[in-house]
């Protein structure tokens, strides 16, 4: 046992993972695999080993064997132009999304790429977006560049989606607006100072006039440019005959501006330009705070992000890369080792060993013979196969889930609460404004218009425009730090109000790490020892699990061994042959249809005698028992599993029997959520591509992931698997934050009531407005941000 413990302490010099053996080493530095070793060799030969000392945690990424041809499509001219940013003479520019960028060492290495290959001119990392921008010349091709990055552990993920969304311009426009509004607001305030201090009468008419003229001049960009979003949005609402929350804001801004022009023109005074620009400034800051997003995470992924950009098509006997949109039904395509099948089809030639873990979250391999049907999303794990596609990519079994209209609430970006209350609010404002006009018009026509306009100015819905961005924005940051990443601030509210929670099983409440191993059959101690000694030489995850499972002494060593990739391992011990691997390699006849259901198996054959097999089951997350107990009290829990019902009795401890559903297809999951959603609000927690439809259909879809850089289906929030145990806390926190926004509603309304008291009487002085509006805005913002922080502290969130 001693020796085993020691071995576990050996960490790979490059990636920090545990090493199974100390066989792979260079000058006393031990590596877990040849991939890590070769990265070290590259770095060492280019004098770039500072990499390992910059960040104290382990900077290296484990090298995954991606197959040789993964980036081959980048040689194709038509694809090249789509991927490249620009091309000027011999210089090319490209931007890759590299999910594995995670520390300062990564930045350092990636920005020193020109030392590794002379073809690279400069490289520049955008850390937040996890993007690398590279300029290179003809000494390196794009494919070689991608392969070089990949060989260093920074495999780029290439798809066209990133190019379609251009977030930069949007963000920049908002920043310009904030800058300009802040500048104008500050200066108008300064110019209004004599007015505030009631000393303006001491100034001569010229100076007074200049101050007012300058204020008006400065307010123009605020009114025309900075506030334009509100006009556009409320105009769109009017066109569709709905009321949105921007409408009273836009009305208030227009009312304040025209009233000011009128007062300046008639010489009554300076108007409300200061409060107007101040309001716009605060509103824009709120918007900016709300807009904070997790740039490196994508919540809007559709099937395109899962699939490769191009596939090898076989046409008239020659191979050619075509982009997926050009692929038609009936085309013959070649799927090489580790490539993903982009469309449903039939195997024409070869044996498909297909890994559907992308789709189902399960790591089992399915074997498909010639003529059998394969589904899009599977990854071939073995020699190349030819496939005849039966459908175009967008109509495949899985992808069509996206093409259905699942967007129930995606059209309107506003929070439900805002919509509900906002409507009444807007109507009430208009009603009071009109009422005060009607009231005054008979008594004193001079005051009537002023009173009506004052109501519009003072009754600005700060609560909606400020409390939600700041309160929820802060909450979103806090949740992000704790491992729950939200798509936008509105998700907080979706998190808070749910009646049921639906769990997916595999990958969601179970984990692929540390599977439960059991052996069916009988092994003697010597036999166990031989197996353990044999699998020690393999880096396959299943081998590692077996190694950890077998608690015997391994003093023996195999005389010789050979590993057959994705099949198994064979070794000789004193003329005794030991084989561990798939049914095929061991020579066991199994029924392929029933084989899939019960988890992965590794068969063992010793001296031509099949001894039995190891079964691997995904183990349940340790915290599931605890959190299901908490959640059960408040929510109805459901389970949708793609597996068979072998674990029904175990799971009935946590779910009521009528809510346990097995053998679910992606479509039936979606339908189930739809059915539930008719009567209640449903939260769905899932992981794989097979949950994607259900996640979109639910009120709040949370996608759980072991590694945030990995792909996750389109959803409202991404939950880091390590934070799974804190889910109930997150939900409680979201509820508390919604409550504090309700509280700020009361504060804001009390300010509005004071303002309204003056406004309906036609007594609203610019000074009152200029005081009341910033005070109410600031106090609302302070209240919600402080409350969000306090709740976080109470619930133990960082």
């Amino acid at each position, binding site marked *: 046992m001693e020796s085993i413990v020691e071995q576990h302490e050996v960490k790979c010099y490059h990636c920090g993972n545990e090493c199974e053996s100390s066989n792979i080493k260079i000058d006393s530095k031990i590596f877990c695999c040849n991939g890590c070793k070769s990265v070290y060799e590259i770095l060492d030969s280019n004098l770039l080993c*500072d990499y390992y000392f*910059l960040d104290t945690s382990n900077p290296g990424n484990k090298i995954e064997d991606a197959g040789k041809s993964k980036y081959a499509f980048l040689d194709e001219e038509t694809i090249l132009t789509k991927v490249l*940013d*620009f091309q000027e003479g011999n210089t090319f*520019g490209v*931007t890759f999304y590299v999910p594995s960028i995670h520390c*300062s060492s990564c*930045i*350092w290495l990636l*920005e*020193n790429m*020109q*030392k590794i290959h002379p073809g690279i001119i*400069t490289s*520049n*990392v*955008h*850390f*937040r*977006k996890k993007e690398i*921008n590279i300029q290179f010349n003809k000494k390196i091709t794009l494919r070689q560049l991608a392969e070089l990055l990949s060989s260093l552990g920074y495999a780029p993920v290439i798809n066209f989606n990133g190019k379609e969304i251009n977030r*930069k311009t949007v*963000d*920049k426009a908002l*920043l*310009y607006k904030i*800058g*300009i509004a802040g*500048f104008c607001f*500050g*200066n108008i305030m*300064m*110019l209004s100072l004599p007015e505030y201090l009631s000393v303006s009468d001491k*100034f*001569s008419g*010229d*100076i007074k006039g*200049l*101050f007012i003229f*300058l204020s008006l001049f400065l307010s123009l960009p605020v009114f025309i440019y900075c506030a334009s979003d509100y006009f556009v949005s409320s105009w769109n609402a009017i066109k569709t005959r709905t009321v949105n929350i921007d409408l009273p804001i836009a009305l208030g801004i227009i009312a304040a501006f025209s009233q000011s022009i009128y007062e300046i023109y008639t010489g009554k005074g300076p108007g409300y330009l200061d409060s107007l620009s101040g309001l716009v400034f605060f509103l824009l800051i709120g918007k900016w705070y709300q807009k904070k997003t997790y740039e490196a995470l994508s919540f809007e992924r559709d099937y395109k992000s899962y699939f490769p950009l191009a596939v090898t098509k076989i046409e008239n006997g020659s191979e050619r890369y075509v982009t997926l949109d050009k692929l038609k039904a009936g085309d013959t395509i070649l799927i090489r080792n580790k490539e993903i099948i982009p469309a449903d089809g039939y195997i024409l030639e070869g044996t498909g060993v297909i890994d559907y873990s992308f789709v189902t979250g399960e790591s089992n391999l399915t074997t498909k013979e010639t003529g059998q049907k394969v589904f899009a999303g599977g990854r071939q794990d073995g020699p190349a196969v030819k496939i005849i596609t039966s459908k175009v990519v967008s109509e495949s079994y899985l992808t069509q889930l996206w093409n259905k209209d699942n967007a129930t609430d995606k059209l309107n970006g506003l929070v439900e609460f805002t919509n509900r209350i906002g409507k009444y609010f807007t109507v009430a404002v208009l009603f009071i404004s009109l009422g005060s006009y009607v009231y005054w018009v008979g008594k004193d026509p001079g005051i009537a218009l002023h009173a009506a306009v004052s109501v519009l100015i003072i009754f600005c819905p700060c609560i909606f425009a400020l409390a939600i961005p700041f309160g929820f924005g802060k909450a979103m940051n806090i949740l992000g730090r704790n491992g729950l990443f939200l798509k936008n601030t509105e998700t907080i509210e979706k998190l808070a109000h749910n009646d049921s929670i639906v769990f997916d099983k595999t990958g969601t409440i179970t984990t692929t790490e540390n599977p439960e191993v059991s052996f069916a059959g009988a092994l003697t101690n010597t036999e166990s020892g031989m197996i353990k000694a044999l699998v020690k030489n393999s880096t396959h995850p299943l081998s590692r699990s077996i190694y950890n499972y077998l608690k015997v002494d391994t003093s023996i060593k195999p005389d010789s061994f050979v590993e057959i990739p994705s099949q198994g391992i064979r070794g000789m011990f004193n003329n005794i042959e030991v084989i561990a691997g798939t049914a095929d390699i061991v020579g066991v006849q199994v029924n392929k249809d029933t084989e899939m259901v019960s988890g992965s198996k590794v068969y063992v054959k010793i001296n031509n005698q099949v001894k039995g097999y190891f079964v691997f089951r995904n183990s349940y997350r340790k915290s599931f028992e605890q959190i299901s107990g908490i959640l059960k009290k408040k929510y109805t829990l459901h389970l949708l599993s793609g597996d068979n019902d072998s674990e029904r009795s175990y799971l009935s401890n946590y779910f009521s029997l009528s809510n346990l559903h097995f053998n679910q297809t992606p479509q039936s999951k979606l339908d189930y959520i739809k059915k539930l959603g008719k009567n209640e609000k449903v939260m769905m927690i899932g992981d794989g591509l097979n949950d994607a439809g259900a996640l979109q259909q639910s009120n709040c879809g949370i996608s759980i992931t072991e590694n945030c850089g990995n792909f996750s289906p389109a959803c409202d929030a991404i939950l880091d698997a390590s934070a799974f145990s804190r889910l109930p806390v997150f939900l409680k926190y979201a509820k508390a934050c919604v409550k504090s926004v309700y509280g700020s509603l009361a504060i804001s309304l009390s300010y509005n009531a004071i303002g309204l008291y003056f406004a309906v009487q036609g007594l609203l002085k610019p000074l009152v407005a200029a005081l009341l509006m910033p005070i109410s805005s600031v106090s609302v913002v302070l209240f919600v941000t402080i409350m969000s922080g306090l709740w976080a502290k109470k619930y133990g969130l960082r």
Partner: protein
Amino acid sequence: MSVLIILVIFSLLVAGSFLGAFIWAIRDGQYEDDYSPSVRMLFDSKKTEIKHKSNK
């Protein structure tokens, strides 16, 4: 009192130049990535200078 007019206009110009600087900074892309520059400056600068320009 007419000195006030000159002072006010001067103050607007000074403030305006700061606004100009802010807009320049946004255009230059300084608000796009607020992490990498902070670690980049700590690296030993043996390498060729990297221009911090957004690509267009």
